[in-house]
């Protein structure tokens, strides 16, 4: 065992333990670490925003080639309107920037939602059914599962009779899906916890585990 001599590792160790103290109760060390990460995170993004967005995407194109980038002045003016939200009397002016962002975002998303969110999902569901292990063990179950789960979410008709039976089958598929997702998430969180424990044992205390 060789204790780390890197002060940065000990700083990370201190904040790691500070966060773990929350398991006992909300306390001074946890709140300190929480606010330190909020401040440093915000500072990190401010610097990144300045360097990469303001200078990189706005100021440099305007200052080096104003002729072909002068149109950037228009969104900049709309962006300035956005800041009017600070002054309640003129807050309505921010609607222009919001309207452009929402409208163009909706227009940008509309064909992509049809393509990726609806058609691709349907295309991936309409699978060939044949008497093979894939056809019966995979494709048929996916088709039945998707249709029955969709019927469960169809509230325009009362879930009675045949519709009710299919909807009940949909609940089974949904429960298995939620269980699988939950199990997967539990394992992901546990692997994160193992990662922090390994950091303490290997990086801080210098243990050679494997």
């Amino acid at each position: 065992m060789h204790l780390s001599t890197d002060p940065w590792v000990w700083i990370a160790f201190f904040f790691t333990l500070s966060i773990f103290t929350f398991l006992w109760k909300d306390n001074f060390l946890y709140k300190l670490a929480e606010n330190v990460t909020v401040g440093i995170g915000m500072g990190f993004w401010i610097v990144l925003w300045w360097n990469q967005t303001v200078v990189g995407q706005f100021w440099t194109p305007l200052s080096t080639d104003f002729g072909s980038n002068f149109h950037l002045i228009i969104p900049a003016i709309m962006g300035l309107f956005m800041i009017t939200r600070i002054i309640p009397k003129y807050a309505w002016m921010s609607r222009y920037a919001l309207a452009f962002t929402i409208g163009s975002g909706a227009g940008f998303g509309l064909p992509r939602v049809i393509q990726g969110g609806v058609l691709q999902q349907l295309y991936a569901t309409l699978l060939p059914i044949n008497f093979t292990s894939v056809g019966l063990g995979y494709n048929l179950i996916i088709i039945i599962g998707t249709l029955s789960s969709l019927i469960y979410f169809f509230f325009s008709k009362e879930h009675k009779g045949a519709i009710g039976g299919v909807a009940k089958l949909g609940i089974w598929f949904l429960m298995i899906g939620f269980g699988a997702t939950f199990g997967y998430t539990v394992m992901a969180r546990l692997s994160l916890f193992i990662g922090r424990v390994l950091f303490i044992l290997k990086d801080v205390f210098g243990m050679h585990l494997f």
Partner: protein
Amino acid sequence: MFWKKQLPIIIVFLSGVIMTVQYFVPLHASEFVFDNYIKWGISIGIFAAILGYFSFIRVHIMKITKKAPNWGYSIVALAGVVLMIVAALIDGTDTNGYYMKFYLYICASINATVFSLLAFYISSAAYRAFRARSSQAVALLLAATIVMLGRVPIGDYFSFWTHWGLPSFYDMAQWILNVPNMAAKRAIALGVGLGSLLMTLKLILGIERTYLGGE
């Protein structure tokens, strides 16, 4: 009225229609519109970010000046912002500089630990969620248990029945993830897709107007 209400609706409609049409028109003009949409969005985002920073700083300064409960932590948060800006100004943003070290050893460490902390809370949530009170809850419990055992080596170690040609925990977990789980997720994805489609149409056609602030 026109400037405050109708003009924003017209902007939403025109920008929405232009962006929808450009997707289907394979012309150079469509590429031009798309490229500039990205640039315009970034330029508006610059000022929207200022609004966010202003809000953050104002909230913490108000807490400090009013000596609100836990106001001392607001000083820590603001000091963190100043520290990062000063570090970047003095030392640059290189990997070996203080700016990146503050981020990697403090911010990234804390974030990773916060997420790892969820392992404890998700375990206690699992205890409540996995109680087999109905046959459907049993399905949830079984699916979760098989997926959990299928993701770790001990699952395969326990799968003694593989000698008889039966699937191991890993195989069962893969099947659950790829078949019934996929079917349920696909139904949810289709619902989300259709919902998003309707919402975008409502926005472009001016039916959905909550972005106007309830007017």
